[in-house]
């Protein structure tokens, strides 16, 4: 953009910078508060509550230690990893072939299949019919109950289809002339070229499954199967209503610190994979798919 440094323009730039700083602080302050609450030593907490600033020399990892050595927390973290990995794998297994098939414009019946897929996107009868289907299939207390109903996102399929359509047709044609069938074309020609889209869509599925908490509450009664967000919710609710007795056993950290430490641990994987997501959505992979 043209940068003419007139007096007006400079004043305007200062205004914009102040606005963006306020915006940034509005996002950062809540997270900062969560961190301080998680690391505050019990004696300071009982004396003066949570200060806005707490010198890092006084920080304690007691709350994290207690959560990670507790019987349920590591188990829940493992369950979340299982759901996320399995869910992402199953989602991609179903999404990729459909997106590839639909990207082949010349395939007879493509419109029929497209309509078949899109109809489910346009009309949804709500929660109860799905609930009856899953309970009818005896999938309660099974991770498939959480993974299968949302496994294929029509939106993600269309984004991936758009990517496949952009690949040069000649590549596929030459492989077909060499006698490769469509499965071989997909596995050996298309997929190696599609790493960006596979990673992007895969990460979006992974984020979805990692965050999922309602369907685990709905379908999993066995507490050994509970994933992290559900356990975190139980801890958070216990704080507001003081009835989750199990966590009163913790003594050297306040319940507030345990809650915040739980929030941070549940958030942590997001921070690790976030730079990867960031890299691809700034490239416009997704924005291009939004308006086809």
């Amino acid at each position, binding site marked *: 953009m043209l940068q003419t440094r007139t007096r007006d323009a400079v004043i305007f730039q200062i205004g914009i910078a102040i606005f963006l700083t306020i915006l*940034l602080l509005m996002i950062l302050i809540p997270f900062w508060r969560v961190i301080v609450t998680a690391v505050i030593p019990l004696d300071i907490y009982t004396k003066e*509550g949570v200060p806005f600033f707490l010198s890092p020399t006084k920080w304690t990892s007691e709350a994290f230690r207690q959560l990670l050595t507790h019987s349920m927390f590591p188990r829940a973290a493992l369950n979340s990893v299982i759901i996320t990995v399995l869910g992402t794998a199953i989602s991609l297994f179903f999404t990729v072939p459909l997106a590839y098939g639909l990207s082949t414009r010349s395939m007879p019946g493509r419109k029929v299949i497209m309509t078949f897929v899109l109809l489910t996107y346009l009309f949804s009868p709500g929660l109860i019919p799905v609930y009856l*289907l899953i309970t009818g299939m005896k999938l309660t207390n099974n991770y498939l109950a959480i993974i299968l109903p949302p496994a294929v996102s029509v939106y993600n399929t269309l984004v991936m289809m758009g990517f496949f359509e952009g690949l040069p047709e000649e590549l596929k044609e030459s492989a077909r002339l060499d006698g490769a069938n469509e499965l071989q074309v997909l596995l050996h020609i298309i997929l190696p070229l599609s790493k960006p889209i596979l990673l992007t869509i895969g990460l979006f599925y992974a984020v979805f499954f990692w965050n999922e908490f309602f369907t685990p509450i709905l379908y999993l009664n066995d507490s050994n199967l509970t994933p992290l967000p559900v356990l975190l919710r139980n801890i*958070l609710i216990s704080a507001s209503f003081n009835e989750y007795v199990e966590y009163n056993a913790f003594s050297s950290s306040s319940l507030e610190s345990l809650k915040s430490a739980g929030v941070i641990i549940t958030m942590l994987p997001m921070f690790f994979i976030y730079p990867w997501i960031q890299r691809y959505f700034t490239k416009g992979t997704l924005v291009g798919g939004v308006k086809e």
Partner: protein
Amino acid sequence: MAARVLSSGAFSFARIKPKNVWRTFWRYRWLYLIMLPTLVYFAIFKYGPLWNAQIAFKDFKPLLGVLGSPWVGFEHFKTFINSFYFADLIRNTLIFSLAKLMLGLPIAVICALALHETWFLRFRTFVQTMIYLPHFLSWVIMFGVLLVLLSPGNGLINEIIEKLGGEPIAFLTSPGSFRWVVILSDIWKETGWSTILYLAALLAISPDLYEAAAVDGATPIQRMWFISLPGLLPVIVLVTLLRLGHILEAGFNQIFVLYSVPVYSVGDILDTWVYRQGVLNFQFSLATAVGFFKGVIGLVLILVANRVAKRVARQSIY
């Protein structure tokens, strides 16, 4: 796209002779084969629920099954529409989704304009990274963040209120403030992410326009008002239409996590009600009828929104 596909479902090769039809199909057999698992998946997990949805018109008894239960026509729909909670549920649902749209959209547009205008590009990237982040966090994590800010004991906002001499407010459990918590926390979480679309539209505006404006001596404010904003208008219209198409989606996950009995009167939406009636009170048919009702209205709204979008912006939403 949806509307276009729906109106032309016929096979494109219908005029070809039957023998050739089979040859064409045979040529693509591998393609059908690799799609087959997904199509079976759709038949079971996307169309299975549609089949089950017939209990909206039946008096569903688990022992009789979906097929065996007796038909009752539109009785559940009448019960719902004539009930005292009907108006409450519709009102809460509309308040949440309209407020999130009408407050959130201008804020997102302003943020996008500011990000687009700034000269400090490193700072801009950092701000973008941070404001996109909350979009990827679940509402359970958001609940934890909100407790740290809002709890009456030592929430940051209540501490500020107390320092200013006020009484602490139980924001999450008092009917007077619950709606604001829902609306503002959604804006906090999603505004950053929604700037992406506007930023893309701003980048698409021709630099010639800005240069011409600079030559004519336009102030930065005039530049934003007469070039950037008109450039954003098609996207704003599209986003508004899309959101209006989903007007009955008021944010189930968010409200399910945040609400509690004291705020049911101001916080209960169609989806949370369907969950409680269907899953917790075993009113399967009534709850399905309400879900069906919501689905039909959603379908009509989306098709209308798509139509209007095509007219107004010459673009299809899907």
